[in-house]
């Protein structure tokens, strides 16, 4: 991987998160021009609100996915965790505002257990994260398919409020997502466990030889990831007003969240990346989506654009000598 050093010409090195936001600005400029030529205003409050709303669900999932990918694993079970937690919440609430707390707790408890299962299978049974989370996802999918034929439960108006309101142009759901992203950022930056997540993803073997209990960071990352997926399920339930067994898989949140994380400059092999990069990646997706809807691009061809953008972006990150060693290695971290 250290091929950058063998290059004859030394190129300017940029932090990958900076590149993500440069890319985001470029996408916004091009998008604004395209939308203007279609006779609409990209920077209208309604449009900004739509983009921010589009960021909230994928943002929640992608923030959790970032943690898992940083440890060198990945989580393919998120769509099913999203669907089942939306159903559990909606069925527990049954339209009664008094049951909101119960429904939320039940959904999040289920999500935490699913994450714990993922983490334990990966660390204790030594199953590759791809297979482990695919397997756990399939197990949940079987349960969903067997027990639910369609939407079920109902969410009280008070809970629907969360998905529907905002402060000015900024939806509450996006504020919640950004607040949680900040929390996760602080967790990664300030806590010992956060540093261990980077360490384990960088090299499991070196971490183990350094006396680190390597299982814990991986399990913690999986649990947080699933809980974030559970929150995404709750948010979707609040928007739809019901729980739905297909809301997660229809959104394609497993592969899209991984794509957003990678678009945000996090290395798929683990150990390097940042939460704000991921948020940038999610924002790029949301802007692309909004622009393509505004200029009435064929919905099927949207996927083509998405696919090309993902691959091109990652090719740019790896092609340039991007500074992959983040500053945290140079600062006080060394004392340990």
């Amino acid at each position, binding site marked *: 991987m250290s091929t950058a050093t063998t290059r004859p010409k030394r190129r300017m090195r940029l932090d990958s998160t900076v590149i993500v936001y440069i890319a985001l600005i470029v996408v916004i400029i091009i998008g604004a021009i395209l939308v203007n030529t279609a006779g609409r205003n990209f920077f209208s409050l309604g449009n900004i609100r739509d983009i921010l709303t589009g960021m909230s669900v994928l943002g929640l999932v992608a923030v959790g996915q970032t943690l898992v990918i940083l440890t060198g694993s990945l989580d393919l079970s998120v769509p099913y965790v999203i669907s089942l937690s939306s159903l559990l919440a909606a069925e527990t609430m049954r339209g009664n505002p008094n049951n909101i707390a119960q429904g939320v707790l039940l959904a999040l408890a289920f999500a935490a257990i699913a994450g714990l299962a993922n983490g334990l299978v990966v660390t204790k049974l030594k199953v590759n994260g791809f297979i482990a989370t695919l*397997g756990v996802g399939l197990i949940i999918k079987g349960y969903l*398919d067997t027990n639910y034929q369609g939407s079920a439960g109902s969410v009280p108006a008070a809970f629907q409020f969360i998905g529907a309101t905002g402060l000015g142009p900024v939806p509450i759901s996006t504020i919640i997502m950004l607040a949680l992203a900040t929390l996760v950022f602080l967790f990664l930056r300030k806590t010992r466990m956060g540093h261990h997540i980077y360490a384990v993803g960088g090299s499991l073997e070196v971490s183990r030889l350094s006396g680190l209990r390597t299982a814990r960071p991986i399990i913690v990352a999986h649990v947080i990831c699933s809980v974030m997926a559970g929150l995404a399920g709750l948010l979707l339930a609040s928007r739809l007003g019901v729980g739905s067994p297909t809301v997660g898989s229809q959104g394609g949140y497993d592969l899209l969240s991984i794509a957003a994380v990678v678009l945000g400059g996090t290395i798929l092999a683990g150990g390097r990346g940042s939460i704000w990069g991921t948020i940038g990646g999610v924002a790029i997706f949301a802007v692309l989506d909004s622009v393509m809807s505004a200029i009435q691009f064929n919905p*099927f061809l949207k*996927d083509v654009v998405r*696919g090309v953008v993902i691959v091109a972006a990652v090719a740019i990150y790896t092609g340039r000598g991007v500074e992959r060693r983040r500053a945290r290695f140079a600062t006080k971290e060394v004392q340990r």
Partner: protein
Amino acid sequence: MSDATTAPAFGTRALNALRVLISPRGAVFLLLAILLVAITALNPNFADPGQFIRFVQRVAPIAIVAIGQYFVIVSGEFDLSVGSVIATQVVLAGNLIGQDESKIVPVTLLMIGVGILIGLINGLVTTLLRVPSFIVTLGMMLALLGIVYYVTGGSASGNPVDSFREIGRGGIRDVPIFGIIPWAVIILAVTLAVAILISKSPYGKTLIAAGDNVTTQRYSGVRVWWVKTSAFVISSLSATIAGILLVGYAGVHPSVGRGYEFIAITAVVLGGVVLGGGRGWVVAAAAGAFTLEALFTLLNFADVPSTWRDTIQGVIIIAAVAYSAVAFRARRKGRAPLASPEQGKASESAPADPAPHTTSMEG
């Protein structure tokens, strides 16, 4: 593996055979045998050669895709695009061949060309632009599906001439025991034979070695980029073959092939092939596909609601990979496949301690 230097007595040979059967690379055959016996017990008709050959025919597309996927996985990469390659080829065949028999050969050649092109793009972007194959093939999957749905509008379209569909449906009739030998079975047999030849050739060994350790391969002068790229070409070519077979009995619909990437990866992993590359046997990968389909058949006969299929598939793949992970660890540490991992750990940690840096220098 390397214990054939002296002719062993029958007892040790039998023991070795048993050891292979319970080892991760053999376990899939044991599991397959158990499943087939269980199916026959539930439904004696299944053992009838005519019925059995139908079963093989049904597995053929999955097994062929799994064989292609094997080459990619063993080289340390992923191919998530196979499902949409199948959809692309099915739609191509449906729309271009139509009811004109003279177009069969040129369109088939075109499909093969498209398959090679997709594999080349996947492989070259992965190796030369150094984008992780997971991302490359995910992008390819999105792009191909988008195009396919754009062209078809999301509904069934086109109907290739019956003689083309015959490849997936028909076969050599009036064969003594089986009644009919489907073309699909013959194509599967040929594909498997070619795959075995490839994996035994120097190229095949280089591919496995590249999956195990890219750096040493690069130092030994292997053109890793070309070796891996050709693995992607093999994979999308096998998806093309599967597409041709599926036109026969699934018809032309953009959703044909959906989920095949995960089914193929599951089958390969069931066959004891290690994700991340460097270890695996192509025959076991094909057997993984048979095992998966046998499992579904068994559930069908046992009247388990089809909605539980996914759950059981999930449990099985986790169990299979956990088993092979634990068994491989035990073998590498203690050279005894059944020794408890704890024992192996104790005997290995002693020599490793004095020079821990030798093991950690790799990064």
